[in-house]
């Protein structure tokens, strides 16, 4: 912040200031808002969106977009459900393998990572526009999620003692230091992501690719490799969310995650990351996710009709980007 005018600094922190403002507003006007139960529920909701938005931030920083994360959430949840409920059926050997829970978690998350990498591969290898490639994956992954159990859900995923695969619900309901695991996962992933974006070559190359792909390429940045990996990481985050949500519900539904990609994009954009790439931060994204979470939680407590909630939410997203545009002009003038 050195050498920056107070005005510029305030502008830079605008999302955070907006969050504090919204938070205080509900703290004063809605009675239940500040109760620890409500705050924990709120944060748990935020965490789901925030984890998706972390992966989305990587992608958007390289000036891409990932529309498939919602479907990948559903797919990974179904895979976790399948492995717990029916195990891995290898037909020609006539065997069924039941894994321990930690293996199932890893497999589900890896599936998310692989589907993300497929996005990245199609985008980099065949020069397909990210919007199109991930739009296709939105359908494909959802289709697979539905195919896994013929459109049905896997209910009651508590496992069986004799199969040694119990304990899955604990991921969604367990706590550490009286905070749910979900919140800790968000916290840890966010820290890793902040580190990745600010302290590693990989992170700097993401910004370079989003800022000027040609210059990055000519500078020897592995443009295709880095881009592919960002989609892989976005898929990974979707896999994590898939596991967490399935565990929270103790069942997996093939329709889980429908339109969640849009919430994630909204959080990223509210956090000040430019859809043109090259500008933005993980911190901003987390704040963006909280803005969305606090708003919807607060509005529910205030008794705002859910129809109006949508109108307000949409307006705020557009408003935030309008302010971003002002900022671009503002900074250019400042220099």
């Amino acid at each position, binding site marked *: 912040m*050195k*050498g920056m005018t107070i005005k510029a600094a305030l502008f830079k922190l605008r999302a955070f200031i907006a969050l504090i403002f919204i938070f205080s507003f509900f703290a004063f006007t809605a009675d239940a808002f500040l109760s620890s139960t409500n705050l924990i529920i709120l944060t748990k909701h935020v965490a789901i969106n925030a984890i998706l938005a972390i992966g989305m931030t990587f992608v958007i920083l390289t000036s891409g977009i990932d529309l498939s994360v919602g479907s990948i959430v559903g797919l990974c949840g179904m895979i976790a459900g399948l492995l717990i409920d029916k195990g891995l059926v290898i037909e020609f050997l006539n065997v069924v393998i039941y894994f321990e829970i930690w293996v199932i978690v890893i497999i589900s998350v890896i599936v998310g990572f692989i589907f993300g990498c497929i996005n990245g591969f199609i985008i980099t290898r065949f020069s397909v526009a990210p919007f199109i490639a991930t739009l296709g994956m939105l359908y494909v992954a959802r289709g697979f999620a539905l195919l896994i159990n013929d459109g049905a859900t896997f209910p009651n995923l508590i496992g069986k003692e004799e199969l040694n695969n119990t304990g899955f619900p604990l991921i969604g309901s367990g706590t550490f230091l009286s905070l749910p695991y979900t919140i800790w996962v968000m916290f840890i992933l966010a820290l890793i992501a902040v580190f990745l974006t600010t*302290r*590693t*070559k*990989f992170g*700097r190359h993401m*910004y*370079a690719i*989003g*800022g*000027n792909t*040609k*210059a*990055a*390429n*000519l*500078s*020897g*940045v*592995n443009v295709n490799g880095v881009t592919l990996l960002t989609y892989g990481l976005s898929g990974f985050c979707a896999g994590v969310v898939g596991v967490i949500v399935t565990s929270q519900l103790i069942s997996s539904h093939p329709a889980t995650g429908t339109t969640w990609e849009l919430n994630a994009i909204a959080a990223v954009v509210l956090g000040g990351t430019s859809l043109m790439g*090259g*500008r933005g931060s993980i911190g901003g994204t987390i704040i963006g996710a909280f803005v969305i979470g606090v708003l919807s939680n607060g509005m529910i407590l205030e008794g705002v009709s859910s129809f109006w909630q949508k109108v307000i939410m949409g307006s705020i997203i557009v408003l935030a980007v309008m302010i971003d545009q002002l900022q671009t002009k503002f900074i250019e003038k400042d*220099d």
Partner: protein
Amino acid sequence: MEKILEAKNINKVYPGVVALDSVNFNVYKAKVNVLVGENGAGKSTLMKILSGVEKQTSGELFLNNKILEINSTKDAEENSIGIIHQELNFFPNLSVHENIFIANEILNSHKTINVNKQISLTKELMLKLKQDINPNSRLESLRIGQQQIVEIAKALQKKTQILIMDEPSSALSKNEASVLFDVIKELTNQGVTIIYISHKLEEIMQIGDVITVLRDSKFICEEQISKIDIPWITEQMVGKRSFESVNDSQAKIGNKVIEAKSIYLKKSKSEEFLLDNISFNSKSGEILSFYGLMGSGRTELLEIIMGLIKDFDGSIYLENNKLSQTSISKRISKGIVLVPEDRQGQGLVQCLSVLSNTLLSKISKKISDFFLNSNQERSAVNKAIDYLGIKVSNSDNLITSLSGGNQQKVVIAKALETNPKLLMLDEPTRGVDIGAKQEIFYIMKKLAEKGLSIIFVSSEIKEVLAVADRVLVLAKGKITKELTGSELTEDSLVKHSQG
């Protein structure tokens, strides 16, 4: 001769740069008025003012002896001044007539586009230009020469009386150029005034009527073309000023670093060669310069060596080892690096800091380098800033907050961070002020003395003469001459670059 347009004492000041310094420019009716000058002499700025893209800081314009205020491109258009830019502005996906009438569509009584009228008017225009172009063809299906004719037709359709053409022949083949010259002749016969900017001196002699020379943002002279010859133009353009020469005969020239053998590159969508059997080598400790006009294939040659262009024929050797089709990052790690011509488009990442830009190319072999060490980074960048004399208060500042010359030094610093054996600089002084130019030359010399092989591309004669140990002159994709020592003169460079 009747003056139609006159610019008097035009000044244009950009922050930190004087682009035009009380320039006078007379334009005569129904003549081809040629404007020449080296890159950065102020030609483009003057044309931007005439066409309403920029506003002069001070000075006056007169049209038919009446004072003329141009505040926008629309003002220029209303006063029948039109411009055809060097990079053509058209819609490749639309047809010829749609392009000609874009934003100016002919409507019928139902407020829909009157396609038949547009087509018939386009046919009339083409008849006037004596060109056979189908009004329904898509622009992308036409050859560049024909696309240019469409641009001219578009200007005529707007009743343009003064048509500015900025290097219209630079992308044209010889046949296409002669078609263009016929069109220009036809236009002046019909009373249209042409302002013609070009670097090709022979064609200026062929089609020009009056010549105006700009140099270092100043008006130098105006003369009838019939009274002058090419050496006169060169002398007026280049002037007596020169850079302090940095080349010296005692340069320690070592082993071959890069060698190219029989490089051929085809123009896109054409059977013509952009590079036609190019072979050369460069040695350590040597500053080798490619001199040639725009479109002579200089940039493409460097891009082939860098690995940006892959579909060429021929082979390249680095220290006698053949370079196979390797990625750019591999070539960088082998010691080849390019400072590109297009600084904003290919050189810099605008949204990153000076520090991040400087270190972007640094190729790491150690896995521990995956993590950035901010102390190490800072000290490396500070060293580079000192070494190159980059003026920046804090390396965390955005790259765009620097002046052109300092931005260019950052691009050079980025290249040097890779520890290169071969440093290629493509027009490194473009958009850089004179002081910074001289500094860049000293840096190049210093690096050559350290044993780097340097390839320097420039279209400015004085620069080439000031820094190059050896010059290869390129014209139309061929090396027309190799010059060293006392053969290196302005005249010989100009002569051989005309092809």
